[in-house]
């Protein structure tokens, strides 16, 4: 399985590098050597025991190493921006940053840089070199190493000191291809001290072929900075979405990350947030609605490396048919990280006998003066509540919907962009009703 990619790399590395954002080349050979050594992750690894990637990784995908432009104009086909949301809108088509910028993006505040790694690599090489790979390069993770070997471009965002973005930045990943296709991209987000920004990442597929996306995102949140990261996944059942989000928080920074999987094939999210300064606030949420044969595994780690930080984690799954969910909540509290407060909750509803949920808290606490709690439940809908609703004239179907919707409510409340929250409520409701939750008037999402 790995061999074909090892051969490919050896044969094509000159082309890979020639067409790549140059800062990514500095890490490339090291990543490749690591990949050659450890290969793709398998379920034998503790961290991947709920993610069986053998099948999607063995499929034969095309790669676009020579960066041949993809004939699609996202502005024409993409009509699904959240109504009412005023965002700075950017597209990545497959693994390339779409070069034509929306004129509204000219309103970005002075000093903010948003663009492709390739372009910004030319204009601000030092800035990128200071951050790129600092969180990813040493990860003993086959997917990250593979990404390091093959990723050629990605999304870049920089918010300078004390600059506040008054609307969210929206990054839409669109997969478009006539043949089974693999995309690797590396994104980099930097918030300097006191900066404030929200990033909304949407994953969509246009074509009905097998896609494999392997994306690595590094986020650096400076002192006193505030960052919100939303990820909305709404793709087709043939898509395998492998995403690694690595974040670092410095002192007194605040982060909210909310990852929502509404529709997909196979999803693996690895999320790691390192609290590397005191007085950080972290909220990590997620929600999964799965049916058919969908598989979603969220592997999360919150690393309390410094004292006096608070973290809160909340993941909820609604699984129907034969869908399978996985959740790991790793909580690490370093020896000196006293006065840590960390709370973790994972609640799951199984709507069918065949649906399965694997959930695992993984606590490694080396400090003694801490407040930590975790709880996980797997259950069915509350029959007594359902009867109460029915006894007021509400049909069983509608009662189930109300209860499922209520179940996801506290995750949705952790969306602090009002228009997005409204939109997601609508999409979730449609999804729970069994309607495809594609955005209205949108020809792009399947």
């Amino acid at each position: 399985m790995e061999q074909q990619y090892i051969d490919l790399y050896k044969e094509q590395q000159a082309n890979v590098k020639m067409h790549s954002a140059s800062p990514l080349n500095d890490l490339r050979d090291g990543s490749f050597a690591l990949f050659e050594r450890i290969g793709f992750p398998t379920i034998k690894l503790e961290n991947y025991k709920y993610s069986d990637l053998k099948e999607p990784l063995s499929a034969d995908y095309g790669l676009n190493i020579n960066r041949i432009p993809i004939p699609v104009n996202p502005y024409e086909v993409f009509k699904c921006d959240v109504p009412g949301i005023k965002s700075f809108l950017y597209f990545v088509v497959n693994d390339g940053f779409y070069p034509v910028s929306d004129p509204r993006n000219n309103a970005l505040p002075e000093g903010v840089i948003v663009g492709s790694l390739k372009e910004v690599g030319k204009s601000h090489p030092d800035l990128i070199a200071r951050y790129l790979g600092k969180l990813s390069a040493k990860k003993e993770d086959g997917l990250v190493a593979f990404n390091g070997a093959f990723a050629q471009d990605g999304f870049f965002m920089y918010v300078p000191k004390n600059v506040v973005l008054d609307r969210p930045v929206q990054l839409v990943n669109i997969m478009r291809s006539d043949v089974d296709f693999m995309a690797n991209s590396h994104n980099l987000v930097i918030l300097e001290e006191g900066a404030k920004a929200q990033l909304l990442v949407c994953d969509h597929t246009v074509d009905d072929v097998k896609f494999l996306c392997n994306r690595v995102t590094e986020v650096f949140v400076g002192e006193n900075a505030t960052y919100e990261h939303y990820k909305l996944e709404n793709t087709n059942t043939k898509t395998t979405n492998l995403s690694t989000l690595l974040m670092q928080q410095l002192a007194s920074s605040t982060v909210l990350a909310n990852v929502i999987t509404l529709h997909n094939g196979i999803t693996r999210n690895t999320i790691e947030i390192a609290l590397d300064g005191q007085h950080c606030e972290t909220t990590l949420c997620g929600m999964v609605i799965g049916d058919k044969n969908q598989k979603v595994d969220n592997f999360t780690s919150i690393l309390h490396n410094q004292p006096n930080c608070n973290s809160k984690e909340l993941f909820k799954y609604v699984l129907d048919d034969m869908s399978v969910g996985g959740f790991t909540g790793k909580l690490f509290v370093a020896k000196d990280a006293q006065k840590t407060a960390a709370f973790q909750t994972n609640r799951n509803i199984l709507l069918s006998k065949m649906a399965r949920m694997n959930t695992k808290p993984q606590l490694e606490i080396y400090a003694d003066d801490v407040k930590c709690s975790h709880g996980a439940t797997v259950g069915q809908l509350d029959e007594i509540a359902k009867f109460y609703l029915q006894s007021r004239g509400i049909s069983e179907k509608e009662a189930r919907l109300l209860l499922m919707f209520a179940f996801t409510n506290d995750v949705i409340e952790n969306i602090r962009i009002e228009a997005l929250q409204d939109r997601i409520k609508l999409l979730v409701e449609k999804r729970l009703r069994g309607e495809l939750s594609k955005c209205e008037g949108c020809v792009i999402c399947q």
Partner: protein
Amino acid sequence: MLEIKKLHASINGKEILKGLSLSVKPGEVHAIMGPNGAGKSTLASVLSGNQNYEVTNGEVSFYGKDLLSLPPEDRSREGVFLSFQYPVEIPGVSMTNFMRTAVNEHRKYKNLDPISASDFLKMMREKKELVELDNKLANRSVNEGFSGGEKKRNEIFQMAMLDPRLSILDETDSGLDIDALRIVASGVNKLRRSDNATIVITHYQRLLDYIVPDFIHVLYNGRIVKTGGKELALELEEKGYDWIKKEIDG
């Protein structure tokens, strides 16, 4: 309107109702009293369609319809309302959304269009006033964090919203302070009409001072063993149930 004939019902294989019969006509108020565990809540549950109870024999007709063959939601839409002895907390479902859904489902059953937003708000306001339900409560999740008395008040609020033909109030008075009791009872009285009826399940004569019954039934060991006028409540208050138990058990 309601004819219960020789109703037998069991839960987990244990027979609780053992041939209960009762007839209720429009405009009437019936009180059901009886010792703990007699089967009063069981009767209410069976009438409202709780699937945990199995009806093994007997029949129930409501305006000529076979009530027992209807799912719980259709019983409600036909006009049967149960004020629960233990109202259920449903976090994440707002009272407003709950009531709007319920009202619209009732309307759909009658082939009516969904209620307009302004009519709905007006209706909510009026009915809240009827039971003096705090605005704050109406903005919260269904019963979540409500006190015992607030939950009971909320039941009567829901009753007012759905305008049932038959209301079954299962110990709606328990947990109410004296003022709340008066408010709830006066709410119930305001909703009384010649074309609807009420079954009040209670342990206390006090409630019946406010909601004056036409009949009082004593339910014991799964059957109605005694029926009388409102003076029966005073007698029970004074003497307890032992004399009735003796009469029945021999």
